[in-house]
C-alpha cells in the first residue's frame, strides 16, 4: 500500500514543506503562573523530602525548576523559538525576584521590628540618663545630628558640585578638564573611612575639637563627586540647540547657562543632589571618627560631640540588650523613612520643574 503511494508521488515534485500558518498551538496566557506554582510545589516537596533546612535552598531549587519546566513545556507545546523566548522572560523574572526578595525582606523586618518602639516619645527624647537595658530613651539627638551634618554637607557640596559640573560641561576643555574628571572619578571611590581620616588629620594638625561640622566636611568629600557626576549627566542632556538659540539672541554665555541651561536641567539636578544626600545620610565611619557620638542633645553643629542616626544604630546594637535592639531597629526605620521622604521630595521637584508640553 505504502509502496504504491510513494510511486504515485514521484512525478509531481515534492511541494516545499507547507508554510506553517500564522497561528499555531500556544499555551494559555496564565501558563507561567502554573509553571511557577508547579515549580514551588516541586521545590518545597524536594526540600522536605531531602530534609533541607534552608528556605533559601528551597527557593533556589524552585527557581531552577521554574526555568526548566517553562522551557521544556513550551518547546513541547509550542516551538523552540517560543521556548527560548519563554526562557529569557523567565530568567528576567527570576533575577528580578532574586533582587527584590532581600530588599522586601529587609524593609519588612525593619518596619515590623522598628515600629514596636517608634512613637512620638521616641522621636522627641534623647538618651540622656537612659541606661542600656531600660526601655525608654529616644532618637531625637541623633536625628538633630543627622539633619545638621547632612544639611551642612549639602550646603557645601551642592554649590561646589554644581559649579564643577557646569565647568566640565560648558567651559572645560583640554588637560585641566580631563584632570578634574579623573579626580572626580577617583573621589567617587574613596571609602568613607578614608575621607574621615583625612579630615581627622587636618583636625589634629589644626588642633580642632570633634564637632558636627567636622563630620559634615568628611561627608561633603563623599558627596561632591556624586553631585558632580549626576549634574554633569543632566547638563549633557540639555540639547545644544537651546544653547545656540540663546547665544544667537545675543545673550552672553553665563546668562545662557543661568537662565536657559540650568532651568531646563533643574529637575534632574535636584534628583541627583537628593540621591547624594541619601547616600551620605547612612555613613557611620566619619561620624565615629569626627563627631564622636553623644547621648545628649547638642543642637550646635560647630561645637561639641553630636550623634547621628547610623551612629546611634551602631551604638545601640553594641549595647546588646533587648531594649537597645528595639531602639536600633526603630532608628533604622527613621533613617529609611528620612531617605525615602527625601526621594519623594526629589521626585516631586523633578515633576514640578520638568519642562511641560501641555497645550
Amino acid at each position, binding site marked *: 500500500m505504502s509502496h504504491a503511494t510513494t510511486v504515485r508521488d514521484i512525478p509531481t515534485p515534492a511541494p516545499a514543506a507547507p508554510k506553517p500558518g500564522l497561528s499555531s498551538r500556544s499555551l494559555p496566557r496564565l501558563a507561567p503562573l502554573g509553571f511557577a506554582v508547579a515549580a514551588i510545589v516541586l521545590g518545597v516537596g524536594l526540600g522536605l523530602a531531602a530534609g533541607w533546612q534552608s528556605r533559601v535552598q528551597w527557593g533556589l531549587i524552585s527557581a531552577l525548576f521554574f526555568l526548566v519546566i517553562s522551557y521544556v513545556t513550551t518547546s513541547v507545546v509550542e516551538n523552540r523559538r517560543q521556548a527560548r523566548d519563554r526562557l529569557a522572560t523567565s530568567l528576567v523574572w527570576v533575577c528580578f525576584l532574586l533582587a527584590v526578595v532581600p530588599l522586601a525582606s529587609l524593609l519588612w523586618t525593619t518596619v515590623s521590628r522598628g515600629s514596636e518602639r517608634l512613637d512620638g516619645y521616641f522621636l522627641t527624647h534623647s538618651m540622656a540618663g537612659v541606661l542600656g537595658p531600660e526601655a525608654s530613651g529616644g532618637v531625637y539627638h541623633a536625628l538633630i545630628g543627622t539633619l545638621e551634618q547632612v544639611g551642612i554637607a549639602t550646603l557645601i557640596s551642592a554649590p561646589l558640585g554644581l559649579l564643577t559640573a557646569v565647568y566640565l560641561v560648558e567651559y572645560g576643555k583640554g588637560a585641566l578638564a580631563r584632570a578634574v574628571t579623573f579626580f572626580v572619578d577617583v573621589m567617587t571611590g574613596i571609602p568613607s573611612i578614608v575621607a574621615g581620616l583625612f579630615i581627622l588629620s587636618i583636625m589634629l594638625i589644626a588642633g580642632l575639637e570633634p564637632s558636627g561640622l567636622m563630620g559634615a566636611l568628611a561627608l561633603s568629600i563623599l558627596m561632591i563627586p556624586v553631585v558632580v557626576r549626576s549634574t554633569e549627566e543632566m547638563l549633557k542632556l540639555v540639547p545644544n540647540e537651546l544653547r545656540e538659540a540663546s547665544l*544667537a539672541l*545675543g545673550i552672553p554665555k553665563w546668562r545662557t547657562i543661568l537662565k536657559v541651561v540650568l532651568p531646563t536641567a533643574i529637575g534632574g539636578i535636584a534628583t541627583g543632589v537628593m540621591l547624594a544626600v541619601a547616600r551620605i545620610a547612612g555613613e557611620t565611619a566619619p561620624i565615629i571618627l569626627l563627631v564622636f557620638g553623644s547621648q545628649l542633645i547638642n543642637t550646635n553643629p560647630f561645637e561639641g560631640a553630636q550623634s547621628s542616626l547610623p551612629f546611634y544604630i551602631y551604638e545601640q546594637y553594641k549595647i546588646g540588650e533587648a531594649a537597645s535592639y528595639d531602639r536600633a531597629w526603630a532608628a533604622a526605620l527613621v533613617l529609611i523613612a528620612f531617605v525615602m521622604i527625601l526621594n519623594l521630595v526629589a521626585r516631586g521637584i523633578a515633576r514640578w520643574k520638568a519642562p511641560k508640553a501641555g497645550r
Partner: protein
Amino acid sequence: MAKRIDVSGLSAYYGSHKAIDDISMTVEPRSVTAFIGPSGCGKSTFLRTLNRMHEVTPGGRVEGKVLLDDENLYGAGVDPVAVRRTVGMVFQRPNPFPTMSIFDNVAAGLRLNGSYRKSALNDIVEKSLRGANLWNEVKDRLNKPGSGLSGGQQQRLCIARAIAVEPDVLLMDEPCSALDPISTLAIEDLVGELKERFTIVIVTHNMQQAARVSDRTAFFNLAAVGKPGKLIEIDETERIFSNPSVQATEDYISGRFG
C-alpha cells in the same frame, strides 16, 4: 536698520579641517539672499560665520573679513555677543526654550540681555508675534509653554523671538526643512514681509523655495568629499535659475549633478 554684508577672503575651519575656502560676496540690505548647494558644501558653516556662531563649535576658527556696513565683525575688540544682537538667527529645527511660556520665549532675548523697558515689553512681544504671523493663533495662551505649539508654529515663535531683539540681519538655516508644505508657505510669506525691515540670508535645500523667496542666489559646491566648500557664483535669482554663468550651477539646478 537693515545693513549690507561684505564678505572678503573668508575661510572657516573645524580644527585642522578647512570647511569653506576663500569666500567673498556682498549681501544687499532689504533683500533676501538664498544659499543653495549640495550637503556638506559649507552653506550652514558660512551662514554661522556671519554672526560669529561658528566659533561656538569646539575647534571652530575663522579667517578673513565680514564687514557689516563697514564694521569688521572679526576686528580686534569686537564682542561676539554684540554681533549676535545685531545679526539674529533662526535654526533648522524649531528650538523654543522648553521651560518658558510663549510670552517668555519671545521676551527672552530682551530680558536676558537686560536691555528693555518693562512697560514696553508687552508691546514688543505683541509686535514680534504679529510680525511672525503668529499673534492670532497664540494671543489667548501666551502663558502656555512654547513647546506645546505645532512644529510650524514653533518655528514662527522662534522667528518672533529672533526679531524681538530688533536685529539688522536675519540668518535662516533651512528654516522649513522640518515643516509641512502649509507651514512652509506661511514661513515663506513671512520672509517676503520681513525683507522690508531686515537683510535676510536663507539657506535652503529646496530650489523652488530659493526661486520663490530670494532676490539673489548663491551657489556653493565642493570639489570632493573632504575638500573645502567654495562659492561658485552669486547672482540675481532669475539669472541663476535661467541662465547661470557657470556650468556646475546649471548642472546642479537641473538635477544633472555629479
